[in-house]
């Protein structure tokens, strides 16, 4: 038995086949590091976590924590390899549903892990109360899980997971079923990391902002493979593909570099868009991209001054007619006929003031400071 206070990094490299789906990944997460995994539905995020957690055995590959092999399977060898059973793995996994034991009180739930590992009832309870204080729920210790809100339940679930002293923390969309307020408080908890920085963590999320705010690194999973990987800033500041751009909720405009270091793009109807911003290394005439958030765009009524966009090649300004209006959780999203790939978000108050409707004619402006431009390498997915 190895006993130390820092179990070590997660290192996993495996292939898992589920039905017709194949997941083939290699990840490494250091102690104290949080890796955010993003990807569309069905891309294999949950399969990734299940394999690491030991709920599912891979077809080949390994999972190790520090020096310790949790799973090892070599299809060339006829034996079945190593598959440490769940109860010996000490891998904490938290899904969308808190799954608190309904027959136990909150504090009994949290004390469950220590108790199961042989700690005395008193010590387990004391430890549990400590964890409940860290998640700010000590005053609800005596309640039944059904008497808590969904957000409180999820906080208790994380306290329970951590009280079991895991060597690895896996979080599978822990915010997805929570309302905005509760999701907020869970995010704050994960950002604070009351469990210290001893263990590697993996967070599956649909929301790139979770990655930006909470994670040290982000990996984008698509169809069972990691397609982009880096710090959240790298990944979302300069999405390599339209898919990541869409995921990041930013506009990725591709076009050609101009002499003055702008990116010149063209809409489907021939309306041009000239974008200037941070970054560089653009070569005139070469493929280049510009990235900016839909919320960075300022909107004003275009009034009567209808000007053909092609004529006024003012950088970072354009006009358009509203093709579609969609409510978004943070405002209304405008899509224009001229540039259907460029989404513009306006806050609700502005939307009311502007009296937006399909067909409205608007002027748009995005500050150069909010745009990031770069040249595009020759081959891209």
């Amino acid at each position, binding site marked *: *038995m*190895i*006993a*130390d*206070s820092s*179990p070590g990094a997660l290192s996993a490299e495996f292939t*898992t*086949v589920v039905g017709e789906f194949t997941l083939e990944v290699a990840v490494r997460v250091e102690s104290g590091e949080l890796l955010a995994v993003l990807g569309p539905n069905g891309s294999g995020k949950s399969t990734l976590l*299940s394999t690491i957690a*030991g*709920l*599912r*055995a*891979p*077809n080949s590959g390994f999972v190790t*924590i*520090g020096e*310790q*092999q*949790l*799973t090892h*399977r070599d299809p060339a060898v006829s*034996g*079945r*390899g*190593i*598959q*440490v*059973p*769940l109860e*010996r*793995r*000490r891998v904490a996994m938290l899904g969308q549903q808190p799954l608190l034991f309904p027959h136990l009180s909150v504090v009994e739930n949290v004390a469950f892990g220590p108790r199961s590992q042989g700690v005395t009832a008193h010590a387990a309870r004391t430890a549990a109360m400590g964890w409940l204080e860290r998640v700010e729920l000590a005053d609800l210790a005596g309640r039944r899980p059904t008497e808590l809100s969904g957000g409180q339940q999820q906080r208790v679930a994380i306290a329970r997971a951590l009280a079991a*002293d895991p*060597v690895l923390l896996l979080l599978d969309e822990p915010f997805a079923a929570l309302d905005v307020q509760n999701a907020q408080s869970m995010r704050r908890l994960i950002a604070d990391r009351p469990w210290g920085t001893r263990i590697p963590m993996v967070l599956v999320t649909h929301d790139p902002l979770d990655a930006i705010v909470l994670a040290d690194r982000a990996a984008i999973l698509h169809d069972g493979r990691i397609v982009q990987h880096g710090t959240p800033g790298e990944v979302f500041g300069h999405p390599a593909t339209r898919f990541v751009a869409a995921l990041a909720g930013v506009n990725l405009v591709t076009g050609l570099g101009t002499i003055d270091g702008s990116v010149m793009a063209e809409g489907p109807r021939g309306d041009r868009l000239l974008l200037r911003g941070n970054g560089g290394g653009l070569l005139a005439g070469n493929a280049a991209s510009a990235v900016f958030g839909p919320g960075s765009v300022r909107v004003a009524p275009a009034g009567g001054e209808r000007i053909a966009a092609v004529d006024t090649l003012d950088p970072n300004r354009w006009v358009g007619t509203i093709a579609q209006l969609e409510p978004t959780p943070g405002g209304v999203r405008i899509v224009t006929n001229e540039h259907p790939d460029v989404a513009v978000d306006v806050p609700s108050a502005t939307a009311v003031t502007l009296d937006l409707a399909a067909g409205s004619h608007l002027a748009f402006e995005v500050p150069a400071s909010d745009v990031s431009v770069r040249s595009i390498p020759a081959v891209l997915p």
Partner: protein
Amino acid sequence: MTTVSPRETHRGPASGPAAVRFPLWLYLPAGIAVAVLVLPLAALLLRLDWAQVPAAITSPAAIQALTLSLVTAALATATCVLLGVPLALVIARSSRGVAAILRTLATLPLVLPPLVGGIALLALLGRSGLVGGALSLAGIRIPFTTTAVVIAQTFVALPFLVIAVEGSLRSVGTRYETVSAGLGAGRFTTFRRVTLPLVAPGLLAGTVLCFARALGEFGATALFAGNAAGTTRTMPLAIYTAFNGAGVSEDIAIALSLMLILVAVGVLLLMRSWREDAPR
């Protein structure tokens, strides 16, 4: 903090979802339970004089009794479904107190020694019985008819259906019924097109238990329906007769039992889809 040393690992399963495993030593009591259920039957078969079996189970009397058993058990099961599903619905939708009382009433025939059940049925429907008196004035005689067999089987099997269906109704709840009513479906349409299909698994389980119990019913039938070949001598009574009869060996009784068990297994396996929908 402890981590796992290699010596503690074990040969894992093939790739695929790892099953949650229960303590392995639970296989011991589980095995004993299977033994309790199966060994007596196995011992019975071992003791059997197989030479007598073909004649015993192909005799017209045996086939007559088996046919009667299957017909009456099927009728009793149908009656139980027709009466028991509404009762289960009433219990499931009643207040706690009423439900507890009705549920206890529904459990009573289980406690009753079958013989007493027979006496009770005679007390009700016999010639001098509560209702039977009036019926016999009207020229209707129930005891000692095939009808009586069905009634006796219904009496002892009904609790199974009620309890299984009620549990299922409770776990389904009333949400879908509310939706159905909101869509303009009348009460009967809701019952037929929503409630019944939703409790189908519980209903099937209850039907299986009910049929099994009706098929095995002996005590109340013997007293209330009598033991007349072709009319009321069901398989269990034929077995009893064979066993009690002077001059015949126990083997015929056992051979008949074997026949009953095989038919029951066949029917139960036919209804095998039972519960397959439920999560593992």
